[in-house]
Every structure is written in C-alpha cells, then in structure tokens.
C-alpha cells in the first residue's frame, strides 16, 4: 500500500505539471487579450506598455516565463517561498487570496455534500426497493427536473422566492449574506440556500445512480442465497445489497468533492460567496493570467488528491481490492 501511495503521489506531481503547462500555453501562447495593454489603462503609450511587460516578465520568451513560474511555485526553489505570482490587475499576491477564499468554498462544499448524501442515498434506496411504484416514478421525475435545471437558474429562482430582502417569502439570507456574516452560525445561515441549490442536482444524480446500481445488485445470486439462508430483508438490503452498490458512489463522491473544492463557480457567483470559484470567474473575466493559473492549479490539485483518497478508501471498503 505504501509503495502504491508513493507511486500515486509522483503521478500527482506529474499531472499538476502537465495541467500547469496546458494552462500556460492556452492563456499565453493563444491569448484573447494583451494583459500589458489592459493593465496600462486608457493611454497605453509604447513606453508604458514596455515598462509593464518588463514589470511582469511578459517580455521574456514563453519558456522562460513558464520555468520562472514553476520555480516560483515550488517551495524550496523560488526566492519568495511558494509564490503563485501577483495579479496583473490589483498587484495583490495570488496565493494568499486563494487561501483566504478556500474556507468559503470548503464550507459550501461540505454542507452541500452532507445534504446531497442525506437526501440522495435514502431516495435512491427507496426508489430501488419500490421499483415501478408511484413513489419511484415521482422521485425519479423530480430528480430529472433537478438534474436538468441549470444551477444558475435554480439559484436565481431560490433568491426570487426566499431571499430575506427581495424574495416573495423572506425566509433565508440571500446574495452577499455570506460575506456580511461574522460568525459560523451566521455564515451557515447564509449558506442554507446555496447548499440546497448546489446539492439539488448532485442528490438527484446520486439517487438515480444508486437506484440503478442497487437494482442490479439485488438481482445477484448471492442476494438470493442470503434470502434463502433466512436473513431478514432489511439485513439483505443493507448488509449485502447497499454495501456492494454504494462503492461506485464513493468514487463519484471523491471526484465531485475534488471538483467543487476547485470552486463551484455558478453557485458562488449567484450567491456572491467569495470562494475559489468566484475568484476563478473574476480571473477569467479580467484575463488575469497569474490568478487563472493559480485557480486552475488549485482545482487540479484537489481533483487528483481526492482521486487518490478515493482509491485508498476503496481498499478498505472492498476487500477484493489490493494494491
């Protein structure tokens, strides 16, 4: 197992390098706008643009810029510790801004995960057990609506209905409430709508996925054997059926958490939650390459790490898996 983890960590480093290189190529070699001219403002004389290029190292050849960036982000190589560069726009260091926003994204993700697991898993199980009934059709129909409705639309509808300042039923704190809140209970209250909005589609997906898996699992021979041995139906379902059917959910969960930790862009934008997703959106809109690279690197990091965590968990969940 230890050797497996070491091999995977080496692979993580390689993957992050490749992601960084691709991002760099996309935004440097094939740019949509000239960052030096953007930064120069409304009267970008050639001298000013040249000075800005030198200031941000943009006049160096692309490979030099890339090597310098890699050197800066490696902890024992760059002269400033781990340095993700500075925003072309605001001059602020990128890494502290990402770390500052990380708690908001983690809080949003954690709450949404809890809700979608608590809702999606039981609904999937009930649907699988009561296949073909009215309850099954209703739950899967609602799941389809939640999967189909874009998060952005769903979020705006939620604000329109429940925002405590402009909603029809003034129930929950709305857009911008998270950054106004100063304590954990306040922040949690501000995240109630975002949690449900973000969790809705995932709960629906997980419910449908578990339903399908469980239906297949319950057809297996060993389930028939368990029933033949006289085990109660509850024991057959939970001890044998669900345990087997839920292992792919673990993989899905790990990847989804990894993706969301890189930023739930739409939810954070609609509800004005200053997390990594919003930061990434602002970076793209402003064409701020250091910010873009920083958020992409962070997002990729969480995805590959969660993928590794999930694979390790598998060894504990499924005794057939050995590394």
């Amino acid at each position, binding site marked *: 197992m230890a050797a497996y983890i070491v091999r995977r960590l080496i692979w993580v480093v390689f993957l992050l390098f490749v992601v960084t290189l691709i991002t760099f190529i996309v935004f440097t070699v094939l740019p*949509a706008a000239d960052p030096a001219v953007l930064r120069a403002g409304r009267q970008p004389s050639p001298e000013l643009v040249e000075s800005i290029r030198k200031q941000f190292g943009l006049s160096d050849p692309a490979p030099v810029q890339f090597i310098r960036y890699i050197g800066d982000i490696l902890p024992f190589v760059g002269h400033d510790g781990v340095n993700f560069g500075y925003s072309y726009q605001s001059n602020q260091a990128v890494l502290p801004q990402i770390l500052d926003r990380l708690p908001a994204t983690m809080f949003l993700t954690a709450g949404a995960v809890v809700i979608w697991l608590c809702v999606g898993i039981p609904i999937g199980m009930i649907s699988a057990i009561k296949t073909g009934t009215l309850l099954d059709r209703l739950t899967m129909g609602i799941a389809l609506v939640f999967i189909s409705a874009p998060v952005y639309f769903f979020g705006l*509808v939620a604000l329109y209905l429940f925002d405590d300042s402009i909603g029809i039923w003034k129930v929950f704190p709305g857009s911008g409430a998270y950054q106004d809140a100063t304590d954990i209970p306040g922040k949690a209250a501000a995240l109630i709508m975002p949690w449900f909005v973000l969790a809705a589609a995932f709960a629906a997906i997980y419910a449908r996925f578990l339903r399908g898996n469980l239906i297949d699992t319950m057809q297996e021979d060993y389930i028939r054997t368990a029933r033949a041995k006289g085990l109660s139906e509850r024991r057959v379902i939970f001890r044998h059926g669900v345990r087997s059917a839920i292992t792919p959910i673990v993989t899905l969960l790990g990847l989804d958490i990894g993706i969301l930790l890189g930023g739930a862009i739409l939810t954070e934008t609609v509800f004005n939650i200053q997390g990594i997703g919003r930061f990434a959106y602002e970076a793209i809109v402003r064409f701020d390459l250091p910010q873009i690279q920083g958020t992409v690197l962070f997002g990729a990091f969480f995805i590959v790490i969660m993928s590794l965590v999930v694979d390790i968990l598998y060894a504990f969940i499924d005794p057939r898996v050995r590394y």
Partner: protein
Amino acid sequence: MRRSFQWTIILGVLLALTLGVAACGGDDDSTGTGEQNTDTSTPQEGKKGGKLISLWTDDVDNIDCGITYYQMGFQVCAATQKSLYNYKPEDAVNAVPDLAESDPQISEDGKTVTVKIKSGVKFSPPVNREVTSKDVKYAIERGFFNTTNNGYAGAYFGDLEGAKVGADPGTKISGITTPDDQTIEFHLKKGTGGVVAGALALPLSAPVPEEYAKKFDAKNPSDYGANQVSTGPYMIENDASGKAVGYQAGRRIHLVRNKNWDESLDFKPAYLDEIDMPQGNDDTTVAARKILDGDAMINGDFSPDPPVLKQVTENSPEQLVLQPNGGGRWVAMNTTIKPFDNPDVRRAVVAGFDREAMRLTRGGKLIGDIPTHMIPPEVPGFEEAGGLEGPGIDFMSHPAGDAALSAEYFKKAGYASGKYEGTESILMVGTSEGVAEKAALVAKENFEKMGFKINLKLVTQDAMYTKFCNSPPAHVVICPNVGWLKDFSDAQTYLDPTFNGDNILQTGNSNWSQLDDPELNKMMNDAKLVTDPQERADAWAEIDKKITELAPAINWVWDKTPLIRSNNVNAQASAFLGQWDLAFTSLK
C-alpha cells in the same frame, strides 16, 4: 402528485420567462423625462454619523491611488486622499484647492507651475506626521516607477524635466522642486503648464510619505496600496502596522474615519462614520432591488438595468439621479480604409444613422442626450462649442436619422443612388457582452440600411479593445462599442487621445477612427500650450467643431450615469466623477 408536478413545471417556466425578460432588458422606450433627476444642486447639510453600504460588482482597478485610472478608484481616492485640487460635487468644471491653499500659478511661458500647500494636514496612522511638499513630489515620482506604472503619469506629467516612464523605484525627477515645506514647483520641457495644472486634480498628486512607502515601492509590484495611508476624511481600515485590513481584494473595501483629518482644512463635510463596499454583486437587478427596497445603500460601480431604470422612474424617481459623467459613446469609422476615407461618406452615414435606436439599447432618454458635437456636458469647451444645441452642423441635427440628407451626402461622395454601392464585406468588431452587444447589432442594421455589407464579429470587451479596435494592424473598419470619459475637466483629455493623429499607436490605440488631419493635429498641439482656462476652452471648442465636421465617428450619446439610493440616504452626486460623492453623502 401528478398535478403538483405539472404545477412545478409551469411555475418554473413562468419564472424562467420572467427572469429572461428582465435579463434581456426589454426593448421599450423609457417614458421618463431624460432631463429630470439630474442632481447637481448645492449639497445640503446632512446628519453626522452612520454606516453606508455601496454595492459593487467588481473591485477597483487598483487600490493604490497612485496607480488607479478608473472612476471607481477615483471615487475611493476622493474620499481617502487630499490631492492638490479637487472638485466640489456641484461643479465639474472648476477644480478648487484641496491640499493646495490656492490656485496654481502658471508662468507666462507655461513651463513652470507653482503650488502652495496648506499647513497642518496630517497623514493617517501609522505615519501621523504633517504633510510637506516633498510628499507630493514623491507621490508624482512614484507614478513613474516600474513597480507602479501609473497609466496617466506619462500622458500628463511626461513633460516634467527629468521624468521617465519605467524608472527604477526611488528615481527622483529633477523637474519637481520643493524650495520649502509648503511650496512645490513643476518645471516643464514644454509650455504645457495649463494641462499639468489641471492634472493636479488627479489622485496621483495626493501626498505619499516616502520614508514609509519606499519599502513597499521597492517590491515588484509595489504593495503600497495594501498598506496606504490617507490624508482625506476617510481611510481604508488598517492595523497598527499600516496594513489595510479593510481592503480584501475582490471582496470588500471598508472605509472608516481618518482620526488625523482636520475638517477645518477641508471643504468636504464627511458626514458618515463608515462606508462599506462589498463586491461581487454581479446580478445587478438583484443588487438594484436591494438598494431601492433597503436601507442605507447606494449603487457603486454598476448602473441599474434598463427595466429597473424604467421602474424607478415611474415608481420612485426621488431615488434616482441621472448624473452627466463627462463621457460619450460613439461608433468609430476607420478613416484610413475605403470608403470611410471619404469625409462625405462619413457625413452621409452620420446623417442617416438612427442614434435614438442606439440610445434605446442602454435605456433611452434617461441615460443621456444625443450629441450635436463632441465635447460632452460639464467639460470646459462644451458651451463654447454650442452646448446642447450644437454648432448647427446639418448631419448632426437629426437624432433619428435623415435618409434624404444622407442620400445627398452619398451623392456628393459619388454614389448616385443615394446609398453606398460597394459590394465588399466591411469588418465591424463589437463586444459580445451585455447591452453593448445590442448596440453593435443596431449599428450593423443601420449601416446595412445604407447599403453597406457588414461582417460583424463579436468578441469579449477586452479582446475587442486590445486585439482588434485598439490595434490598427487588425484593419477593423468599424468599431461600434467605443467611447471615452474625461480624465479631469479639460477637453484635451477627451479629444486629444481620441482624435489627434499624433496619438495613433500600433497597440492600445484610442484614436479608433485613426483620424490624422494635419491641420487638426496642429490645432490640438497648439491648444496644449494655452494656459488660460477660458482660452483653453475656446481653443478646444474650435477643435471640437472641426472634428465634428470631419465626421470620423457617429457620436450617439453623452452619457449620464444612473445613480440609485435607498430612501433613507441623502446621497450627493459628484458632477466631476459622475458617481456618488462619498464625502458629501449622509443618512437621513
């Protein structure tokens, strides 16, 4: 169960339609009167105390007042800094002394500008000491450092002896001298003292203590902005070391009172105790509703969408101010590419263009007047150029377009049919973002009505500016989404970057029409050397008329910024900034 499922779908569709219509902005004309609610009256006495919330969508371009070059950064700096000169809210034309104690003295030859500064003005904590002329010298010098790269230092202060864009941090400018603690002199290579004096109203002239700031300016990029000190009535909340904890990039700006500010040395009343500017309010419809229905709020860096504007005008006009902002928008025609190298073709286009339809895309009459010449209201030279009525140029006199007059000009240009007869595809590059996209589509339609075959390319705004319209090698023929804002109250800042042939750049070009008329260029270069304010206004008014006659662009609106406030806010608009004036705003 089935019925409730159906109702869920129906409700969802209805809500989507409602939101979709609101998001699209509709196409109805405003029935409000565009001339009302322009509040430039003398500020009223306000109530001291309280906290104001200003909702923003995005961050300032830069929190450092020595770097920022956009209105929202200027708004924050106007509240936190005392530049040498500033503007009272009701007067966009005449700057008044702020840190200075009197008007600037300009020598006869225009090569020396002398300013006396007030005694007793102090920096905020942790610097705490009295401001001297050396602090103003350092403030302007740092604009030229290669760790700050101020966007207008070279444009307005580049004639200072010894000034060089991209200088190393700490480089002195020999042309700025400080004979004593209260006197600063600017020595220029050319007689451009008139424009330098006007530029002293920009935040670059706000003092910066060198002994405190130099360590921040030595870093690349400078992080003085995140550790700045203030001289104005407000400051960004900071800790004991000076770190601006009230500035969270991309999230919030929080201003508190500067305890070292002396109100007897300032014309600003500074009623409020705190000003909070949370950012990220991207859904401007939601943000606008919060302001209108809420408490102690104003809008920051966004304008309400056209449907919200219409609603406010009809239901609560007292919560709306339409503030001319010294800016305008136009459709630029490339005068170096056929057929727009022919002035009569350009005049024909302007004559036949429906500028009211363009204005409708942004909200109709409410958002500004249809121009009759170039210089916008509230900028010196506007009245001298003819004011709202204009100089009487025929092709500028029909806001909805005049097909007959357009045909006359096309015939003069050699197109007997009265429309353009060419068959080539003409490249137009516009922006794909927001209401500006609609303006691009309306522009395309107008050109096509006149016989042009238009190839419209829609790109992001940044790409439009940096890769296409601002880049002459891209050979874009028509740029429908361009415009300009004055930097300070001088028509040079409006006309020179945009229509002087000497300012055509191969990248970052703002003379989108690439107008290069030698006589016009000479008029502008001569006007730069005029020092008397009235003579400058007269000179630039003449230039305005000539530009208008050459018709390089279809000037379709003199902008007004719609400003909204909650009912319990006594918000004062700044005629200079075209935004709320935070130092004059109070709660009821």
